């Protein structure tokens, strides 16, 4: 529990550091919000213009971007420093972290307070509220629990993906590029029912890049579309578990990569 206390203290300090530059702080909340609003506008624009997407009702489809965005928002808040780790590496901070008695992964997460996450989450919560209110489903305790679990699973899955990219960044400075692309892909394709895409493509986004497990499958299971996703029902339903396992695997990969870290520009 000492670790939690230390982490909390550092977070508070980081937060205070961000407050130092007031205008910057407010702007960063703003940019987080605006960014997500744009994704929403984009998604809803498409959703309203292209009705009957893959057999999904408009009241149901909104659940996909809502789940994705909420998972992403929590990811950014807790585990988001893996994305864009390139700068930390370039500044040689990893070398410093390696000398301290705290796991490097945690230190990276605690290196700065992600102000934009506040905006991200505000919008995500708003969208989720909107999606839930428009939904015709019967929100039993079981459903709600499953939704919460899936959001957490989505967070872990996104974290796993970005951690994998970060591992590559430890060796190849240009790996940051893939991180940016990953973010783009998750944002663009994570918000649609993937059955509108041809099998090959949706297969890639399921087994190649496990995007589908972040939001599409959970939403499908919740709204009763779980049997037309193209994968066995049990696989779709196990999305959160997959997310957790992927994250644990990514942490192992991280540890291995750190062991082979050769420092920044010799």
């Amino acid at each position: 529990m000492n670790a939690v206390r230390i982490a909390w203290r550092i977070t508070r300090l980081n937060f205070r550091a961000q407050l130092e530059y007031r205008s910057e702080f407010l702007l960063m909340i703003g940019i987080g919000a605006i960014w997500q609003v744009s994704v929403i506008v984009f998604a809803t624009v498409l959703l309203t213009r292209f009705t009957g997407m893959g057999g999904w009702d408009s009241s149901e489809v909104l659940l996909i971007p809502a789940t994705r965005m909420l998972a992403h928002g929590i990811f950014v808040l807790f585990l988001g420093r893996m994305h864009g780790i390139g700068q930390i590496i370039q500044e040689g901070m990893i070398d410093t972290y390696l000398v301290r008695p705290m796991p490097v992964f945690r230190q990276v997460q605690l290196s700065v307070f992600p102000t934009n996450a506040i905006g991200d989450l505000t919008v995500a919560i708003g969208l989720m509220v909107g999606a839930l209110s428009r939904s015709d489903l019967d929100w039993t305790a079981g459903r709600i629990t499953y939704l919460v679990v899936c959001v957490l699973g989505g967070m872990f899955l996104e974290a796993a993906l970005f951690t994998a990219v970060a591992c590559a960044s430890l060796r190849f400075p240009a790996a940051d590029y893939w991180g940016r692309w990953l973010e783009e892909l998750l944002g663009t394709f994570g918000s649609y029912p993937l059955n509108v895409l041809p099998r090959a493509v949706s297969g890639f986004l399921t087994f190649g890049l496990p995007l589908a497990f972040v939001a599409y499958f959970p939403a499908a299971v919740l709204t009763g579309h779980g049997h037309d996703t193209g994968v066995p029902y049990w696989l779709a339903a196990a999305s959160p578990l997959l997310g957790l396992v992927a994250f644990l695997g990514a942490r192992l990969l991280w540890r291995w990569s750190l062991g082979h870290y050769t420092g920044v520009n010799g």
Partner: protein
Amino acid sequence: MSGSIEVRGLSRTFHTTVRRPGFTGALRSLVQPERVAKDAVSDITFDVAPGELLALLGPNGAGKSTTIKMLTGILTPTAGEARVAGVVPYLERERNARNIGAVFGQRTQLWWDLPVRESFSILRDIYEIPKPEHTVRLQEFDDLLELSTFWDTRVRHLSLGQRVRCDLAAALLHDPPVVFLDEPTIGMDVVVKEQVREFLRHQVEERGRTVLLTTHDMTEVERLAERVVLVNHGRLVLDGTLDEIKKRFGSTWQVRAPLADPHAEAVALPGIALLRREGPKVVFGPDGPDAPAVHQALKRVIERYEVTDIALEEADLEDVMRAAYVQAEAPESRGGG
């Protein structure tokens, strides 16, 4: 006038906003910022003759980097003027750029992702150096700095020593009469440092370049500089040759003797000052105009103390500088040169 540096009454003041602590303080700072003026450089005057190597010394924050930035044209002075090779650097930036080369210690001007030679080619184009001249010069640099062993490597893969050598070559590629070096050998190993010093000496003596060098490395000063300018708190404190400074602030000899009884008290002897104590070792130096000759001092020390060893050393330049800085702090001993 080629290659000379003239500095007259150069001054530079910075205005910074003071950030008040705490929440309300930060708010107040937004609304009513409090500005504070800092005199980074005040009224500095000195000359560097063509073909001379001048060491610009001073503790951290003394204003050395600020002075160099004004002389390279990156910073405009708030008062005074300067001329480098007859050109005023902050007024005629591009013309000045052709006359100077600069290396700022930790920062490289090379392109990170490209092999070093590619950086040289780009600079050759930018400075419009004719190809044959460029080839000859590269060969010369290679002879002195052994660049060809790594100049096909990308800059990101170079070690610090290799990179600074390349930066030096890059700065001199266009044959500038004046060179500014801001702590170029910081962090380097002794072998490379010596190579760089040889290179600099060659540039000054054979090529007649004017070099203004800032450094904290006293061995470097000792080996390269004939003249030294000392600044502190933005003001010029000393301007003179090394010998003059040593004579003024340094002891000409030091006697280092570890005492047999490490806890014995060590007191000064007439004409012999206790410079410092390093555990059991005690260092003595001459004290005042009546200091004895060194052999007398040796005798007196041995007579007075039980020593296990005794060694005679020439005054360390670091000690000299320390004395100079300290004396410079004292109000009566301001100014020099």
